[in-house]
């Protein structure tokens, strides 16, 4: 298993240890706003265990991915704030 994983968050390249979730990678990239709520407010993870759906973002063009449950993989393109 490779020790590190290369991905991009909002177009910026990022290298994280294997086993890092996408939610953690987004935080490592310095982002606090994961998504906009229905009324446009900033939101980030709440439950950290896949229940609350606040950590949703877009992974490889697929929207509504629960970033706290998904491990980073090489080449992943992550976009927040959509």
């Amino acid at each position, binding site marked *: 298993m490779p020790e590190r994983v290369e991905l991009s968050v909002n177009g910026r390249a990022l290298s994280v240890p294997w086993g890092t979730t996408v939610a953690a990678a987004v935080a490592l990239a310095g982002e606090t706003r994961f998504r906009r709520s*229905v009324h446009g407010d900033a939101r980030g993870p709440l439950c950290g265990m896949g229940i609350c759906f606040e950590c949703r973002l877009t992974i490889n063009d*697929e*929207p*509504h991915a629960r970033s706290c449950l998904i491990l980073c993989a090489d080449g992943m393109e992550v976009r927040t704030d959509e």
Partner: protein
Amino acid sequence: MSAAPDIVIVGAGIVGAACARECARAGLRVLVLDRGPIGGGTTAAGMGHIVVMDDSPAQFALTACSRRLWQELAPELPAAVEYDPCGTLWVAADEQEMAEVHRKAAFYRERGVRVEVLEGDDVAAAEPALRPGMAGGLRVVDDAVVYPPAAAQHLLESQENTRRIEVRPGVTVAAVNEDGGVTLADGTRVRAGLAVNAAGPWSPLLAPGLPVRKRKGHLVITDRHPGFVHHQIVELGYLKSAHAVTADSVAFNIQPRKTGQMLIGSSRQFGAEGTEINSDILDRMLRRAFEYLPGLGRLSAIRAWAGHRAATPDKLPLIGPSLVSDRIWLATGHEGLGITTSLVTGRLLADHVLGRAPAIPVEPYLPARLGKGATLHA
């Protein structure tokens, strides 16, 4: 409400709400009773498609008139009703269905309904998510979409009506009486000049023998995927199949909600009493939708649910006095078109009560047309 109401309506669904609104506008005092919340029965299980239909001249007259009433109402609808004049796109998969597009187009144009005929490429441009190779389609420009429970609530509770309408949710009616009143489940008698049975699929409980049957339907709603489709898209493929009114059936029907969510239908089942999900029919309904929208399967589904429509033998609603008593009115049997035809139903009721000329000829909808079945009232 201190004095007895002029009219008591059983059912706070979209049909009962529309009846209440029209009567209140006419100056009458209205009491609306429902065993559940406003719009919690069939109204919560429908798509909210406001659509002109042409299966029969009577159906066209009813839907066209009611759609006009919705258009008139639209400016006052609050955001929660999610009124969206997105239009209907009837898609033709092949040349046979395309012939139907042309027939429909001619029929609608002659009657002043705005339509556009789309050839294959135009359909693909209008709805890129459709599978390639569609023969064409018919865009019915002024068809629209609403969120039905909020629409029912608005009809009952908009500023101008609240003075004359009292809604009592959570009250079960045991009987509709020939003197125009009702008897509640707890034995209380409510007096009124006229009782309206707008209980949809449950209307036969208050009028035994009424030829209204429960027809179950399933729906699935997705998370927000704005722009996946732009019109309410409906197939014309059902033309080629046996038009069974008894067997279970499915058809491709998708609706873009103003929220960006996709509402997926539709199915029809007789003899299915409960509102649980029947995975077999849900399966068939979704497979049919995937045939038209290959990318639909990847969207995120939030909820699936089922409910019942009120079906009549001739696919037209029952609007008018019951043969048991002219102080009992029926406003039921709207099947899958109740959201569209609710407003005209209310208008026809008010026209009758006030002795006005009816908005459209009422004969095709009178309960008496179905003969003895409609008159039974134990």
